[in-house]
């Protein structure tokens, strides 16, 4: 089972190592990890996607909760989360297939970042599914390199959630 764990932490140096270290040390399976600022510059949000059985996941959440820098942890089931991800994909572009590719790009809702002589770099953002299907959709072409951010998430229907005031 997959679970999204959304963590608010004090924005301290080393906090990401503490979280990442804990998760890997306990041999939990991390699918992705993403970190970035929140509306409060003293607070960082880390989004983890982990898989494992329910009991293991509960342990992850509790162990993370215990870390000194952690303000709040939410284990969010996939269906009750707003999620998003971004990917950059460079594909090789044989000149004669340019229009074929451009069709695909608009069909898959991607945007063009740069065009080189024989390659093109595309961007896609949205749900993980959308990113997955964009990548799959590009399969007639050769993907030269790719970077995905990993999922970021907010719980559904909790506007302003996570703004726990912390001095």
């Amino acid at each position, binding site marked *: 089972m997959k679970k999204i764990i959304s963590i608010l932490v004090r924005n301290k140096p080393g906090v990401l190592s503490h979280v990442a270290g*804990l998760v890997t040390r306990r041999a939990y399976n991390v699918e992705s990890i993403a970190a970035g600022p929140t509306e409060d510059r003293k607070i960082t949000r880390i989004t983890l996607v982990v898989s494992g059985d329910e009991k293991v996941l509960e342990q992850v959440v*509790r162990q993370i909760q215990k870390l000194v820098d952690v303000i709040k942890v939410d284990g969010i089931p996939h269906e009750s989360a707003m999620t998003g991800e971004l990917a950059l994909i460079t594909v090789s572009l044989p000149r004669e297939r340019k229009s074929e590719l451009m069709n695909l790009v608009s069909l898959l809702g991607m945007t063009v970042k740069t065009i080189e002589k024989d390659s093109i770099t595309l961007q896609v953002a949205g749900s993980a599914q959308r990113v997955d299907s964009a990548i799959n959709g590009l399969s007639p072409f050769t993907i030269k390199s790719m970077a995905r951010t990993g999922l970021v998430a907010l719980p559904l229907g909790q506007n302003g959630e996570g703004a726990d005031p912390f001095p």
Partner: protein
Amino acid sequence: MHDKPPAAAGPPPPKGTITGAQAVVKFLLDRGLKTVFGYPGGAVIPLYDALYKSGVRHILARHEQGAVHMADGFARATGSVGVVIATSGPGATNLVTGLANAHMDSVPLLAITGQVPTTSIGSDSFQEADIYGISIPITKYNYLVKNADELVESLAEGLHIARTGRPGPVLVDIPKDVQTSYLKYGEPNEIRLPGRDPGEPPSEAAVAALAEALERSQRPVFYVGGGAVAAGVAEDILRLAEGSDAAVATSLLAKGVFPDGHPLSLGLPGMHGPKYSNMAINESDLIVGLGVRFDDRVVGDVRRFAPFAKIAHVDVDPAEIGKRLQVELPVAGDLKLVLKALQGELKPGPKPRWRARVAELKKKHPLQAPESPEVVKPQKLVSLLSEAAGEDAIFVTDVGQHQMWCAQFLSVKKPRRFLSSGGLGTMGFGLPAAIGAALGAEKLQVVAVCGDGGFQMTLQELACARQYDVPVKIVISDNGCLGMVRQWQQFFHKRRYSETIFQFNPDFARLAEVFGVPGRRVEKPRDLPGAVDWLFQTKGAALLDVFVDPEENVLPMIPAGKGQTDFYEAET
């Protein structure tokens, strides 16, 4: 040698400032942390300069591992925070075992390490080690102080973290240039940490549910752990147990929290606990864990632990609750607060049938203490020491068979009188921890019981004991082998004693003499009582090397992962 620091080159310090190193010393003194253990080196020379004639008592160990175990023993014996100082690189990495040991047993330590200057960090410079990164999984929290302005705040927050909630070791890594920078020493703001406040009152509903279960229970057992020592609740537990006729099992770390020899005392549960302890747990209808981890050495096979019992678990660390076992009655919170609330809720009722059953189990299945006229039986040695040292002595053990015999046969009636490396099982802990304990609890007699193996891991600290005239009594349960491992090889590997028999051991008594510590050897049972008298009558530190039966085994034994009453039948 200069008493006053030589005039510093360069511009005079800005008015109203002190150096980072001086700030560390001022901080220690202000917080009453007047005894520190450590070992100097290049990256802490400024700090040691500030310590010079400062009023802080610095104990110079002979190895950083010794220093950190001393700080640990000091903290366990006194209940205050142990402080250890080491230099960068090898000094810091030598702390690793001791930090992991303190982390596993939730001992509050403040470890201060020197680091190469901020300008060199990350360049593999001389004696650079990333102790911040290395110590993440083995500390409760850690800091790399990159700026002198953050120094005092980090120390204050670190100290707070080390001793509040579930205690633990905190490491503060201070680069050399931060130690020499000038800063304005200001009292840090009130410390506010994110997340849960461990001082929060426990949930009323949870306490009420526990009270109700305890009233209903016909066969209650309290399973008490090191958390009860940290929370200082020995008396509350005694009152509660007597009021509700609960039998009380104490984990290795909690030995002494409930008085050994009490009619309701079950002693150590688990792998090497007395049969009656595990049988009582097996028959119980309610196990109440109090500040305890339900360690695998106690629980064994999770599915067969206390099969008829509801499990209640009170712990200040919510992550412990339900970690290994399914818990029906979880109570997260400070033990002191929970027990107080419980006392208010509870209408205790005597359970004479359970009391009688416990007495019967204890009578029918006592620990076996073998006797021999030929060779000293280690169990006998431990009993003799217990009598001779008296109730107020602090016993410190190393790790191995002798540790388990101490857990079984020492009679300890107060908390902080039995110190042992539980979670990590660190050989080499005994002697330095005993030195630290003796320096912390100066009025109490401290006895270190070590194996011949573990003693050889940190024996250089004899020099430290001698230098500071620490009156620690050292007893070596000398079986000429790594007894505990040999026992497993005997039981589970057809007596293939692979690398567990010492073909050579030094003469420990003479070795002690070289360190200026009087030493004696005992080879025959008839000489033992006299030698024990000698040990306790000798002034200052003294060492007794006792040849014990090399074939003796720790029994009963429940093999790892087995059920609660699967006692191993050893052929003798």
